[in-house]
């Protein structure tokens, strides 16, 4: 696997991986470091960080320990990012593959649907979905997934269109391979790498969308997500700006890590882009 060596040669990619492992470690150790429910009342509200030894990062305006919410929030945000990305990429691959492989009328119809999703501002559609189906964590995650599938679909379709007429696919056809074997056996393995790399972009967007929803107080209040903390901190922004700042930095670091890893993968997989 030559590309692994290629990946580790670029410093930003390594930094991204380290940051990502840090966030994953935070998520994993949350249960051990902060056993109590992060949403429980821990003390007086709006205590400044380092002001009270029991709360390194202080408390928010509901008297909850911010450090606990950051650690438990890592688990939620990664979960939302991952699940939403899987949903978006799966839908994207299926629609992209069918449209790209069969072309003709099927392709036009599916592309009309993709265009419809992309013409309608995705955040607006997300708003409608959350208002209609309620804002508990599962519906929010599924809604984010359902809203972000057009981009991976377009990418998969482009890959399929270029691979469909490649000679090894025609060879497969002359050997008598049925369509589904050609799609999933021959074309998909070669179409996947760029889609997987793009998944890092979808994940970054998913985490940002959840925090935007929470900012408009439409996210699930029973869950210690970073977005909720920022939304809550919005009311005390002028004085206790740290309540919004700390989760904001957490989101920034996570999304940065995911993007750096994605870009590192992308450059490692097609070295030509690095100008070599």
């Amino acid at each position, binding site marked *: 696997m030559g590309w692994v060596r290629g990946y580790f040669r670029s410093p930003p990619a390594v930094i991204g991986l380290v940051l990502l492992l840090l966030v994953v470690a935070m998520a994993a150790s949350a249960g051990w470091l902060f056993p109590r429910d992060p*949403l429980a009342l821990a*003390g007086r509200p709006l205590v400044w960080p380092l002001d009270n030894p029991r709360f390194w990062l202080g408390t928010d305006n509901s*008297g909850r320990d911010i450090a606990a919410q950051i650690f438990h929030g890592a688990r939620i945000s990664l979960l939302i990012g991952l699940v939403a990305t899987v949903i978006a990429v799966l839908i994207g691959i299926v629609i992209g593959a069918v449209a790209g492989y069969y072309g003709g009328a099927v392709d036009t119809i599916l592309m009309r649907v993709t265009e419809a999703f992309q013409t309608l501002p995705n955040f607006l559609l997300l708003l409608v979905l959350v*208002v209609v189906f309620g*804002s508990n964590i599962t519906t929010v995650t599924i809604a984010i997934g359902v809203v972000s599938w057009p981009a991976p679909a377009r990418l998969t379709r482009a890959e399929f269109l270029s691979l469909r007429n490649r000679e090894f696919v025609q060879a497969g056809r002359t050997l008598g391979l049925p369509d589904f074997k050609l799609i999933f056996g021959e074309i998909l393995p070669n179409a996947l790498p760029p889609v997987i790399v793009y998944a890092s972009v979808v994940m970054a967007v998913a985490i940002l969308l959840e925090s935007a929803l929470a900012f408009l107080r*439409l996210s699930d*209040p029973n869950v210690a997500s970073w977005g909720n903390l920022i939304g809550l901190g919005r*009311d005390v922004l*002028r004085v206790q700006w740290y309540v919004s700042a700390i989760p904001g930095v957490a989101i920034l670091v996570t999304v940065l890590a995911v993007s750096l890893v994605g870009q590192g993968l992308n450059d490692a997989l097609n070295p030509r882009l690095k100008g070599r």
Partner: protein
Amino acid sequence: MTDHRLEMKRRTLLLGSAAMAASAMLPQRSFAQGTPRRGGTFVVHYGAEQRMLNPSLQASTGVYIVGGKIQEPLVDLDALGNPVGVLAERWEAAPDGKTITFHLRRGVTWHDGKPFTSADVQFTAMAMWKKILNYGTTLQLFLTAVDTPDAHTAIFRYERPMPLNLLLRALPDLGYVSPKHLYETGDIRQNPVNLAPVGTGPFKFVQYERGQHIIADRNPNYWRPDAPYLDRIVWRVITDRSAAAAQLEAGQLHYSPFSGITISDIARLGRDPRFIVSTKGNEGNARTNTLEFNFRRKELSDVRVRRAIAHAINVPFFIENFLGDFAKLGTGPIPSVSTDFYPADNGPQYAYDKARAARLLDEAGYKPGAGGTRFAVRLLPAPWGEDISLWATFVQQALGEIGIRVEIVRNDGGGFLKQVYADHAFDLATGWHQYRNDPAVSTTVWYRSGQPPGAPWTNQWGWTDPEMDRIIDDAATEVDPVKRKALYARFQQRANSELPIWTPIEQIFVTTITAKARNHSNTPRWGSSTWHDLWLAE
């Protein structure tokens, strides 16, 4: 550390109810003296755009803050909270309470020059208060006709006796008069005048830029001599509370009404000499935070469970640490500011006592099961109000400690109303109960049975109590003020003992205004009043 050690550093725990007056008496600043300076523009923070601006069609603070300067009510409240005539000079009621006569002020003209006459009062009362105005429809339920023997007399005739002090207390909010000659033709609701109001007030409507601002200029031929002092009032639409606080500090706003900015900004600007932050001038808009029980859930239909829930929540701690100086311990549906009706004995109170709460729950048969959970409930908080979401989280945390797992379900405005007051799809709900100077206006309806589903802020708990219904109906038509007050005392005691709704916190809106303002906050409902005497010092 079995129980989390609460941080008590700054204040000792106030066990009793903090006296409302004490917290209101902030360092006195110059409220009204020196010769008034003419001119200048007063910029107001306008938080939520309304669908209309005419206060005789929609009774809400969002409308009064604008419409209240352009249209005037028959009667308003003076500095001490007693009724004072505005469009009505004098009034008298027949002994049987079925006829009340208003003698209207002379020489008053509408902004478009037409004279103000009793015909306007008759039309507004019969077509608007009785048919469209929220809470007006119930208040004027038994109004049969308004006679106009001459241009300056309006006689209200009632089928059942209307207590004078109830009407006089209600009219400041529900008594605004609209010009008949502009509303008599076509559908009142779709009339464009609703968004470009014409009134008799000190300020004339100029322009409404949707989503941006509303402008009203000085009314040169206002009936009060040489009033108003200001040249122009501008209402700026700012939906984000932090942005509003920022613009106050940046000098782009002079006044943010009805707790328009966040609790922490209120506390911060309170310490800033450039601003006056107080509840003074909002005594007419008292409200209590509620915890509403759905009796259709077996557990909550048991009064012991409801009392246990009340005992399990440390309200004084919440008030002191979360709401700051402008809230106090609630003692019942009738708030302590209502000097006329606040009873001496409020009936049972529910101090914070976790052990007693646990005992009551065991008594009721709900022992803690796996993981210490007795049962689970869904709590629907109203989406407006920073204090409501903080209170909902605090309830979730507190009940979690005694084994009741609470799931908070968020909705937007429309969704909340439908789920709670129409579909009854809730276990606990929390929001605001607005008290409007008289229990009969918008308070007893929370307890009176027989409310049609879909009517918001009424008794939708699936709880009928004949004893309570009788008290409410008698008090509504009791003409003698002393007897009426006694009836409402029994209403308060029964409400607190049966506890269909718990009213743990009493709050008044907080005003944040520039220290340069003069003659401000000088009546109990100043935010909604006409500001004819308001002026800005240098």
